[in-house]
């Protein structure tokens, strides 16, 4: 299976701008992207719809990580996946240029909370995406049991279209 992630350039720019905002104590910001899904032969196509930032008051003080968010914030995103029947992707940025990668903390935390999205909205896939200033990288949970593949290709749909292979 090839996994493609498509997002309009305007939505991606809005996400980057939001994630760049300073927080009172958290080192970085995070948010969630909802997406529709389509299949084409052996391609799974993830089509980004909307971005919702995590509210300022939902960050918890934790000097050990870039950002720790409350259970309430995660619960709200899960509710979104369930009510709107959408795929939901956690998103944050590492800045810089080129295709980024998950940190050790990202890998650990993704494995802890993304499966809970699969539990409440099993009709969709869910996952996590990390951005740089020029590209993105991501991983997808298809269900609770099978391995979690990486997103193969990203497409930023704007003028011009930008495609990059991420895995």
């Amino acid at each position, binding site marked *: 299976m090839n996994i493609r992630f498509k997002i309009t350039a305007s*939505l991606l720019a809005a996400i980057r701008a939001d994630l760049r905002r300073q927080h009172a104590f958290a080192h970085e910001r995070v948010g969630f992207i909802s997406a529709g899904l*389509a299949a084409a*032969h052996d391609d799974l196509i993830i*089509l980004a*719809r*909307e971005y919702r930032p995590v509210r300022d008051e939902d960050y918890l003080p934790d000097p050990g990580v870039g950002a720790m968010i409350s259970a309430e914030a995660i619960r709200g995103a899960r509710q979104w996946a369930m009510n709107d029947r959408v795929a939901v992707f956690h998103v944050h940025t590492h800045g810089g240029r080129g295709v980024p990668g998950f940190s050790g903390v990202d890998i650990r935390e993704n494995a802890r909370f993304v499966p809970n999205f699969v539990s409440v909205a099993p009709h969709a896939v869910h996952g996590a995406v990390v951005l740089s200033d020029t590209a993105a990288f991501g991983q997808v949970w298809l269900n609770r049991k099978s391995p979690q593949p990486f997103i193969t290709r990203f497409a930023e*749909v704007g*003028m*011009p*279209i930008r495609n990059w292979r991420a895995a």
Partner: protein
Amino acid sequence: MTRLDRQSFLGADSDAILDAATIGIVGLGGGGSHFAQQAAHMGIGGYVNADPDIIEDTNTNRLIGGTLADVAVSMPKVTIAERLIRGLRPKARIISVQADWRDAADDLKRCDVIIGAVDGFQEREQLERFVRRHLIPYIDIGMDVHELGKKGFLVSGQVILSMPGAPCMRCCGFITDERLEQEAKRYGAAGSRPQVVWSNGVLASTAMGLLTQVLTPWYPNPPKFVFLDYDGNKGTMTRNARMELLRDHVCPHHPADETGDPMFDIRKQAFRPRLTAAPEPALRWWQQIWNRIFGRAGTAK
């Protein structure tokens, strides 16, 4: 020195970008065949060509690449397009679907850009709904000839670039309920619409410029929404006034929450690789006999 050296102003990576791109061409008649030829000249690497029709005698006034010999063997239009493209891009990735574009939906979903050269507003509306759902930029071309009584005829047409999130063909008033209704009333009426090669060429060339802007623009910040009016009598291609009016308009007809397949369920989805070639539609018994008697090639690809 390469074949594409003279278009190096499109950017240092333009050859690779064009080669990696896959475009869908829906309708390989007068407009689509022009477009296929130009895309091959430009170095586009991937094609999904969809058209159910074979070439007929009356197509030869405008179908680029079509010959009288093709008419004699009832050559499918997609086969003619594939031959045309391979003459310039022998290793092009071509999927030829001699069927309605909806039968090529999975192939079209994977395209970077789709070009519609179809007849009718209903067809256009459905195609635009499909591309918006899958975040695919769409370029529409079409021409018409209007009778002006004693003043002769007006040759006209349009080229529209419809990008996800930007104004659509309904936003700009090109597709309206009234037009759809009128078209539905005319459905099945006898007679064919006038078409000529030169105006199709102008429209397809303009559309090729828009495709190039979407893939590898040669100047900064090209417009995301383009609506150009062609007047074949005046010999002009002008910006429709709505292009300016709708510059910052957000399309209400195709909201973001409609992306994706509405009934998608990952638990029921079988992901299978595509067969290397599109399956050939089976000939009916009378078509087989007809072809045997008159030596026609049928739907051979």
